[in-house]
C-alpha cells in the first residue's frame, strides 16, 4: 500500500460574494500518495484551482474553509492545513513543503527584475544563503530545469525569454526549496504543443530526481494521459470519479467522465457532429440536490435528482459517485466512441 502525503477529508470551501455564499468545494475527500502524479481534470469553474489553493494558503480573501481537514504528512509530524491561521503559519510551509506553478508564465514573473534575482529571492528566504553561495545555487537551479548558459541567463529579464523558457524559470523558483509536493496548475495550456511536450518531460524528470509528488491540474485530457498515474475528475466542487489513468480512460464509469471523453475532437468522426455536453454547470450559490450532473445527463435516473450518490467502488483503486453503479440500477452502456480510446494513439 502506498503512503499518503496529503489527505483531504470532507473539505468544504465557501466564498462570500456580495452577501451571498458560494459553495465552491462541496465536502470533498481525496488522498494524494507519496511520489505519484495525480491529475485533476474538470471544466473551468469546477473548483480544481480553488481546491489546490487551499494547500498553499492562497485562497482569496473572501473565501474560507467551512469544515473538514487537510492532513499533511510531513517527515516528522502530521499537520492540518485547514487549521492554519494567517501568513505566519504558512511562511515556513509554503514553498518548502508544497509549492505551485501557475498557468501563465507571462504573468507570474516580475518584468522589472532579473531572472536570477527572482530565483535568488526564493533561495535566500528559505535556505539563508548569501553571496557567492547564493549565485551558485541559482545557477544550479537554472541548469536543473534545462536552461543553458545559466551565468548569462540569470542576468537577463523575463522579456528576453520565450514562453517555454519562462515556464522553466517558474519551475526553478517552485523547486528552489526542495518541496515535497509540486502543484502544477495548467502549466502548459499557454504553450505550443512542441514546447508543451518538453515541459512535461522536464516535470517527469524532476519528479524522479527530486522524488516529488505532483498534483497536476488541467482540462486537457491528452496531457493527463501523458503525465498522470491517477486521475480525479471534478465536477461542481466535488470529485465524481477517481482511479488510475488506465481505469479512468479505458473503463470510465461516471456519466460526466463519459461526456468529457466523448467531446474530445480527437475521437470525432469527420462530417459528423461532435458530442457536446448540453446545458451549463450548476449554480453553486444554491444547494445542490442529488447528483450535480443529473440535469445535464440525458440518461439520468430518477434517483439522481433526489439523493446524492455515495462512492461506489469499482476496484480498490477506482471509485465513482454515480447511482449507475448501484446493484439496483438499470444497465446503462457508455457511449460507443469512447470504447476505442485504447490504442488510438497509435492510429
Amino acid at each position, binding site marked *: 500500500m502506498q503512503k499518503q502525503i496529503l489527505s483531504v477529508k470532507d473539505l468544504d470551501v465557501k466564498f462570500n460574494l456580495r452577501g451571498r455564499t458560494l459553495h465552491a468545494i462541496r465536502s470533498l475527500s481525496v488522498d494524494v500518495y507519496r511520489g505519484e502524479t495525480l491529475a485533476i481534470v474538470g*471544466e*473551468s469553474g469546477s473548483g480544481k484551482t480553488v481546491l489546490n489553493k487551499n494547500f498553499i494558503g492562497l485562497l482569496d480573501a473572501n473565501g474560507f474553509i467551512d469544515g473538514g481537514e487537510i492532513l499533511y504528512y510531513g517527515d516528522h509530524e502530521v499537520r492540518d492545513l485547514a487549521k492554519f491561521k494567517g501568513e505566519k503559519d504558512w511562511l515556513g510551509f509554503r514553498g518548502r513543503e508544497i509549492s505551485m506553478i501557475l498557468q501563465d508564465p507571462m504573468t507570474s514573473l516580475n518584468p522589472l527584475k532579473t531572472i536570477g534575482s527572482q530565483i535568488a529571492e526564493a533561495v535566500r528566504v528559505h535556505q539563508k544563503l548569501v553571496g557567492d553561495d547564493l549565485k551558485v545555487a541559482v545557477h544550479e537551479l537554472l541548469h536543473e530545469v534545462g536552461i543553458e548558459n545559466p551565468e548569462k541567463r540569470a542576468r537577463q529579464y523575463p522579456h528576453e525569454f520565450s*514562453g517555454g523558457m519562462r515556464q522553466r524559470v517558474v519551475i526553478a523558483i517552485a523547486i528552489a526549496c526542495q518541496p515535497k509536493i509540486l502543484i502544477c496548475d495548467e502549466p502548459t495550456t499557454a504553450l*505550443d*504543443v*512542441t*514546447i*508543451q*511536450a518538453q515541459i512535461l*518531460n522536464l516535470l517527469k524528470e524532476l519528479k524522479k530526481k527530486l522524488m516529488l509528488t505532483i498534483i497536476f491540474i488541467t*482540462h*486537457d*485530457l*491528452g*496531457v*493527463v*494521459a*501523458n503525465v*498522470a498515474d491517477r486521475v480525479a475528475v471534478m465536477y461542481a466542487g466535488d470529485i465524481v470519479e477517481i482511479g488510475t*489513468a*488506465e481505469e479512468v*480512460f*479505458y473503463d470510465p464509469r461516471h456519466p460526466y467522465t463519459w*461526456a*468529457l*471523453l466523448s*467531446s*474530445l*475532437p*480527437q*475521437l*470525432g468522426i*469527420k462530417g459528423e*457532429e*461532435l*458530442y*457536446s*455536453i448540453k446545458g*451549463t454547470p450548476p449554480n453553486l450559490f444554491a444547494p445542490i440536490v442529488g447528483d450535480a450532473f443529473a440535469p445535464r445527463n440525458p440518461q439520468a435516473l430518477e434517483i439522481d435528482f433526489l439523493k446524492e450518490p455515495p462512492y461506489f467502488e469499482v476496484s480498490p483503486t477506482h471509485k465513482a459517485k454515480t447511482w449507475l453503479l448501484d446493484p439496483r440500477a438499470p444497465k446503462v452502456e457508455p457511449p460507443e466512441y469512447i470504447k476505442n*480510446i*485504447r*490504442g*488510438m*494513439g*497509435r492510429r
Partner: protein
Amino acid sequence: MEERDVILSVRNLDVNFGSRRKPFRAVKNVSFDIYKGETFGLVGESGSGKTTIGRAILRIHPVSGGEILYKGERISGKISRELDRKVVSEIQMIFQDPMSSLNERAKVDYIVAEGTYNTKKHLSKRERALLVDQALLDVGLLPEFASRFPHEFSGGQRQRIGVARSLIMEPEFIVADEPISALDVSIRAQVLNLLSKLQKERGLTYLFIAHDLSVMRFISDRIAVISRGQLVELAPSEELFRAPLHPYTKALLSVVPQPDPESERGKKILVYDPSVHDYDEDPPVWEEVVPGHFVLGNQREMEGYRMEANR
C-alpha cells in the same frame, strides 16, 4: 480528384517586417490554393508566420512580394475601392481569445452590427436590429442578448458573438485564427459543431489556423504545415497523418497529445533539427510528390520523399 473551384489563391507570398534595409522575413515564398467550401488547416508553432498569412489575406499586413488572388482577382497591394469593399465583407475573421477580442464597453448589438455601419449604410435602425437578431439566432444565442455587455457571457458564448459578428457581413471566406484554443474541452466541441453547421448551411470556406494537429485532423479537409515562415508540407488530412514526409511534420505529429495513457507513456518524441538539410548547395523547392501532396525539399530529399509517399 475532381476539379474544384479555387476561391483563394496565395502565390509566392512574402511578408516582411521591420526596416527595408534589414527586413525580418516572417513569411517566405508561400503558395497554396484553397477550394470553395473546404476547410483548409494551417498548422505551425507560435512565430511560424501562420497568423501573418491570415492577416495578409485580410489585408491587415501589406505583402512584400507575391500576390493573393480571391476568386481570380488580385486583392493584395493597391486595389480598387469596389473590390476593397467586396473583400472587406466577403472575407471575415474569427479571433482566438474571446475574452479580449470583444469591445468591453460596447453592447452586443453594436459589436455584432459594427461591420454593417460601413458596408450597409442604407439600413435603418430597425433593419439593422433585425439583422443582429438573426445573426445571434444563427449562432445559437438569444436576441435578448443584444442589449448586454460582453462580460456577462461565458467564454463559449463570447466566441459565438465573435462568430455572429463575422456572419452578419455574409462572408464567403472566414479566417479562423485558433478559435478554440482558449476554450474549455466541452465548449470546444460546441464551437466546432457550430462552425461546421454554418459551413454546411452556407457553403462557407474556412482557413483554420491552429497549433494543435489533433483538432485539425477532425475539422480540416487539407492541412498545410508551416515552419519559420515557409510551408514544409501540404496534404489531405488523412494522407498527412498516414504518411507524413517532412521531418518537421513528423516531429509535430509525435508530440500531439492523445487521450490514451498506454500510448502516451511509450511515445517517442521526435525533435526537428533544421540542420539536417543541406540547403546551401542544393536549395529546396516546393513540389507535388503524389497528387495533392506537396512537400518542401531539395533534389536529394525529394527522391526519399517520393519513395516514402508511394509506399
